[in-house]
């Protein structure tokens, strides 16, 4: 569920829209958006919970400095949502708390 954060589009790119999937829900983004921008535009303020205290966080710097917008993108954990462009069908999930170690993931 989007949680009431409100950004509006001033104008739209002629390039058209892209649909990504966030926590199983379709999110319409503009071509050229980063994943973090697309989620903020769709009203999702919270994009992860922290590893230490499990508290909610959202994008903060939008320029790759703070690592607060870490997301699981197409099965790969801990990616900076503000540094990844949206592409059609991208699967995005929140990072919940600390990541557990597992073997044989799609990282490589």
């Amino acid at each position, binding site marked *: 569920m989007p*949680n*009431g*954060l*409100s*950004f*509006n*589009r*001033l*104008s*739209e*790119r002629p390039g058209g829209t892209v649909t990504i999937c966030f926590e199983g829900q379709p999110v319409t983004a*503009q071509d*050229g*958006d*980063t994943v973090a*921008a*697309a989620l*903020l*535009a769709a009203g999702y*303020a*919270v*994009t992860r919970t*922290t590893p*230490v*205290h499990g*508290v*909610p*966080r*959202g*994008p*903060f*710097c*939008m*320029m*790759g*400095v*703070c*690592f*607060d917008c*870490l997301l699981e993108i197409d099965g790969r954990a*801990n990616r900076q949502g*503000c*540094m990844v*462009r949206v592409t059609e069908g991208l699967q995005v999930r929140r990072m919940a708390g600390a990541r557990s170690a597992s073997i044989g993931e799609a*990282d*490589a």
Partner: protein
Amino acid sequence: MPERTDLVVIGAGPAGMAAAACAAQRDLRVLLIDEQPAAGGQIYRGLDYTDRVKLEVLGPDYPRGRELLDGLAQPGIRCLPESTVWQVTREREVFISRNGEADVVVADRIVLATGAMERAMPFPGWTRAGVMNAGAGQILLKGSALIPDDNAVLAGSGPLLYLLAWQYLQAGVKVGAILETTPRSNLIQAMVHLPGALRANAYLRKGIGLLRAIRRSRVPHFRGVTALRALGSAQVESVAFESGGNAHALPCSILLLHQGVVPNVQITRSLGLEHDWAPLPRCWHPRVSAWGETAIEGIYVAGDGGGIGGAEVAAQQGRLAALHAAQHLGAISVQECESQARPVRRHLAYHLAVRSFLDTLYSPAREYLCPSNETIICRCEEVTAGSVREYVRLGCLGPNQTKAFGRPGMGPCQGRLCGLTVSEVIAGARGVSPAEVGYYRVRPPIKPITLGELATLPLPDEQQLEAQDIG
């Protein structure tokens, strides 16, 4: 064998773009690396795609970056977008991660043009979702044409705060309030530097214009704001503060913070270079020559990464570094280098004239440099200022010790965001200058890289390995 090139420029903002163009014009082979999909840096971000609305909202300075972007269309420049540099060595090897694969380039000369980042502005609640840097607001505007709903609150101090407020007003956003944390005494101290600043009065005129427009808009503007708090549950719902002796609270779902920008020193620090503490803008500057060259021969710093000067200064510094590199590689003579540098230095002096005034006027309030005990200062590891003060009481003298005690600076951002605050808090607790306390020891990889990516790195030539074995 790894790829070799004359010049690697890291960062495609004003400094990097100007350096690349200047070097390529003098027949150097240039590789320009940037994390973003298009050149421009943060200031000219999204300039590759603009429309009328965006240009009107962003104001007259934004399209000025076009000239720098156009300068990149030269056969000698190869651009490497969406590429992350995770290590630079003293031997001038640059390690890159791109599309999930690692690579290395060896350069005769390197210009580090990694720019600035916003100074952290910690206070209770600043970690809540919906609280963001003002720069993030601007990035959303430039990159995705996103503007906040009405009632967004802007808090802090410095020119970018006014610029963003002005841009939002142009876009028709009803800004909820501007909460100015600049100490009132700054203005008096800054007046000493006013005559110098008047030499570059275009900056002052621009600032006054922004302030007038904000005043005309009747956006509530609170001055001397202290005791700032972001309140809410999962995300920010209101902001509480004191101003003029009264307590206030305003509803907001978006709170944008700014208290100046500081050099991004991750690469210069990771190279083990000397950095000097600048007491006025309260940040570290890598030590460089008049050409921007560091103590490592052939590695230069240009632009805000060497000290905040703004886009014009950055471009001139990029040109100086490129000229010196070109001269060293034999593309131009010493005399040509000197004569071509002369007009560049003149521009540089003009644009730097305003800095002392601005740095003094917008020097951050102590409260947000050295926050209260309950405030989280390391966002990654969720360490409070109080914990760091406790580690000092236990005997820690500097940030590398507090890091070992309680992990501040050990999370994924590698201390980028908390570095200055941790040094300030330790210095405050010890009653010394941050110069004495020092900074984090930054080690490569300076951006996280997976083992999978690392494994794609081309191995050194087998014959070379054999030769080393024999040697």
